[in-house]
């Protein structure tokens, strides 16, 4: 995974010029920017909506919106967080239309921290092979509420800082930390409760 810190300054300048050309509605800049972000954006949408067809449509809608509103983009803000926040708004609308699920509130049946105190210990997970562990974690992730899937994807898969997650989700930093904590608790409990998660 490429991190911003590993990118050379010349590359960053190139990214900035791409954004500037995109603001001037240069189609070649559009192709370059989409290419740069397509995998991560698609993965984020897929994790949130859990439907490849919907994720693809939202992917296209996101870039339509970005191209339409690029002149409103503030260059002082990270383009990536702005891009993901646009995608998030579209995903929220999709989830509200298609599923009784929200990125604003956890499900009514969501796990409470108090319920997890007596969860299985680490010995069940330690016994799994690394590849099976990843598959299990991913499969279990899909069963969590959207609000948990989102924060886990942004933190661990997209490797966003907490401040960036707060920017994307338009929530305070404390809320991000709270959601991150609850989501990991829920994921751990779900893994321990799954048949594959037991020794």
């Amino acid at each position, binding site marked *: 995974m490429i991190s911003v810190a590993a990118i050379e300054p010349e590359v960053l300048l190139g990214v900035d010029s791409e954004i500037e050309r995109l603001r001037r509605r240069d189609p070649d800049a559009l*192709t370059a920017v989409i290419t740069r972000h397509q995998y991560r954006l698609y993965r984020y949408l897929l994790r949130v909506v859990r439907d490849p067809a919907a994720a693809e449509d939202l992917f296209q809608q996101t870039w339509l919106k970005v191209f339409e509103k690029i002149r409103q983009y503030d260059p002082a803000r990270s383009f990536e967080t702005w891009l993901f926040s646009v995608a998030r708004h579209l995903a929220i609308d999709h989830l509200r239309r298609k599923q009784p699920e929200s990125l604003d509130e956890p499900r009514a049946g969501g796990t409470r921290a108090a319920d997890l105190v007596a969860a299985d210990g680490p010995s069940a*997970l330690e016994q799994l092979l690394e590849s099976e562990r990843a598959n299990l974690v991913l499969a279990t992730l899909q069963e969590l509420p959207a609000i948990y899937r989102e924060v886990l994807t942004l933190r661990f898969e997209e490797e966003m800082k907490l401040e960036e997650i707060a920017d994307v989700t338009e929530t305070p930093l404390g809320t991000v*930390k709270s959601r991150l904590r609850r989501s990991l608790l829920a994921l751990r409990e779900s893994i321990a409760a799954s048949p594959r998660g037991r020794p």
Partner: protein
Amino acid sequence: MSEHEAIRTLLPLAAAGALGAEEQRGLESHLRDCNLCAAELQTYQLIGQALARTPLPPLPERLLERTRARILRQEAARFERRWSDMILACLMLFGWTVTLTVWLLWRVMTGGGGLLDFSLRSMAMWLGGTTLLAWLTAGAAAILLGPGRGLVRRYL
């Protein structure tokens, strides 16, 4: 809440690298003496590592090309709408200019008195006539310019 319970609540955030410096120091101090918390932290870290190592899902076929094409179609439609609005505004302005000019010439050629000398009845007739003429002019020009829009569309 005991120190142990307080530290347990921090373990998920510790695995996510989300603790502040002071919290991290408190955690490390506690872990030196608590194997239970150390083991639980390792569990969360394994979960986090597994999440970080999930492979990127494959993109749908030609997603980039289809997305680009959809955007360009939208841009073309938007351009056409703005072009149509601009043409309509110009035609209206043209129509009014023509009718005003015709009215002025008519007054001058027929010796109809001062240019600003008119009655309410003639004013109403003038407004009605010029409005009709303006719309007819604009409509005729729009029809004549219609094929030009097709040329613009093909160019885009």
